[in-house]
């Protein structure tokens, strides 16, 4: 009887300990798995070197009014830990901003370094990049949506794997680690075949659904995948921004000095 009591007690104690530790252990595992999924996606793009692509961005509001912007984005892959990619965006239309250029040196947790070139004045201006949540050229894309693809920028938690529109996807919760984000969290969908980002749901600082980004028409260039249509829908305003890409060009003959502010008046 006494013996049994000891056994029962031990079992009960073990059960209590197990139950108490179960949630953190699962959370830890979910975080590791979430990070692994994001890292796998990030690695699938490692070594792309440089790329150049022409994009058409179409902004439309619920009343049906549309504005089109055409631009070219040159990208140079990061050279080491702690740095992000360098990118140079040059606008072709609308005509009144033709030749305007935005140079960005991405950082992981600090604010990016950004310079704006205004062609009418031939003026290069270092600008504040503190407005991460601000809109990119009046679109539904925030600056952080376009530059925050660095692995270290979020804390990841794996949620589930499910089939969306016929594709199996891992769903990971991404919580921004950098300051001044406009989001409390993102739900990031990665397909389980090629590990590419397919869909992102953005939640505002109050935790309410804000926007949804759908990435489609993935095409493969050697081992690298690129989406050719990205649709961002704002659920609060009903406004939609669609980015359509022409063919990407990889292995462009860029060097780091082609991404310095001093070259902006020589484009």
């Amino acid at each position, binding site marked *: 009887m006494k013996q049994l009591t000891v056994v029962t007690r031990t079992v009960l104690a073990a059960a209590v300990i197990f139950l108490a530790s179960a949630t953190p252990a699962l959370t830890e595992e979910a975080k590791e798995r979430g990070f692994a999924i994001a890292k796998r996606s990030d690695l699938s793009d490692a070594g792309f070197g440089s790329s150049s692509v022409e994009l058409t961005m179409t902004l439309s509001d619920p009343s049906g009014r549309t504005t089109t912007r055409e631009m070219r984005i040159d990208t140079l892959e990061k050279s080491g830990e702690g740095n992000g990619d360098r990118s140079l965006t040059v606008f072709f239309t*609308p005509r009144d901003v033709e030749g305007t250029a935005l140079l960005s040196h991405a950082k992981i947790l600090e604010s990016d370094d950004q310079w704006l070139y205004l062609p009418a004045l031939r003026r290069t201006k270092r600008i*504040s990049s503190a407005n991460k949540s601000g809109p990119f050229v009046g679109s539904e894309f925030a600056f952080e949506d376009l530059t925050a693809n660095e692995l270290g920028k979020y804390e990841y938690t794996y949620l589930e794997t499910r089939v969306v529109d016929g594709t199996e996807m891992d769903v990971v919760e991404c919580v921004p680690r950098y300051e001044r984000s406009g989001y409390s969290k993102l739900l990031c969908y990665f397909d389980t075949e090629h590990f590419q980002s397919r869909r992102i749901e953005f939640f505002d600082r109050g935790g309410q659904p804000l926007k949804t980004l759908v990435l489609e028409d993935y095409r493969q260039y050697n081992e690298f995948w690129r989406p050719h249509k990205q649709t961002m829908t704002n659920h609060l305003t009903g406004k939609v921004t669609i980015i359509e890409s022409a063919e990407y060009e990889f292995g462009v003959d860029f060097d780091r000095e082609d991404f310095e502010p001093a070259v902006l008046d*020589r484009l």
Partner: protein
Amino acid sequence: MSRTAVLSLLCVFCLTVSSVGARGLSIRPELSIEARGFADEPQFFDQLGTAQLGVVLTGQASWRSRDRKTRFDFEPYIRLDNRDSRRTYADIRELSFSKDFGTWDILFGVSQVFWGVAESRNVVDVINQIDAVEDLDEGEKLGQPMLRAARSLGPGNIELIYLPYFRERGFAGRDGRLRFSPAVDAKNISYERDGEAWAGDWALRYTQRRGALDLGLHAFSGTNRNPFLALSESGERFLQTYQSLDQVGVDLQLTRGAWLLKGEWVAAESGGSSYRSWVAGFEYTLFGLGGTAADLGLIAEHLRDTRDLTKTPITVFDDDTFAGLRLTLNDSQDTELLAGLIRDHRTSAIQYSAEFQRRIGARNLLELEARVFSGGDDPFITAFEADDFLTARWTVFF
């Protein structure tokens, strides 16, 4: 500029009205129609009344080689004015050929160069002559013939510029508004250096970025872009003399979060006297104003200049403060408003200004610009006292 030259420039516009994409050849004409209204009847005899109309024909023709390393750019500028004869003119803003040779980038031709970081005035910006007929804010420039060699040094950059020919500053004519009294004589011009416009100038510039800091250093030796004005014997005109100018300067900006801290400083020698000019201040941006997408920038700058006005060209910015607001709506039409004032602490003269712009549709731009002069006792500001104006400009991009 001769009639044939104007006609040939016009032909460039008429020939091709199409864009041929990012690379290769691209021709992009622009036409602006401008109406300017003045609040008061003119102060001086001969000046135009309260309305002035203008038409501007400009645009860019550019060509890029496939590897983008060879570039050609052309930007003619023609303004027609219905009242002020000196405001009908043509200029070549850009006509340059440039090539990136890897370490060196060479530009040859007529071009424009901007140096500086400040909002109200750029004391380090000395390469181009300003187009004073066009605008008072020193933002419009005349094309400048030059040979420019630039070399990248990692995060640094060095540029050597030779400027073989000097461009005179344009001033409003006798019949124009926004002129001094008496008007500036555009014909009898004298040069201190070799007595001519071909004396040649040199400039050297080094820029570097390091973390939050963007730094620029420069040296210039040549002819002062700002003329020394002296009354003619009869007292009926101002005569222009372009003196020599040697200067060195620094410009820097520190970018921290929503703060931009800016400063420009030059030490110069011109007209036999040495002086310093500087401007220092900040721009602080309130992002996402009131939960909207709009940003509001708060700008304040102090301007100081120690020159001896009896020997060197005039400046009204001897001891002034600029305060301004920049509202950027971040909307699909790129709506922007910049409003500010400059107050002179010695004369209490105040100049107010406001500029608004918004794209209409995809190919039109509406710009509004207003200036109000509150004279104090500055003789150069009181000359503009009856010239408070509002300009509306409609630009069509073809």
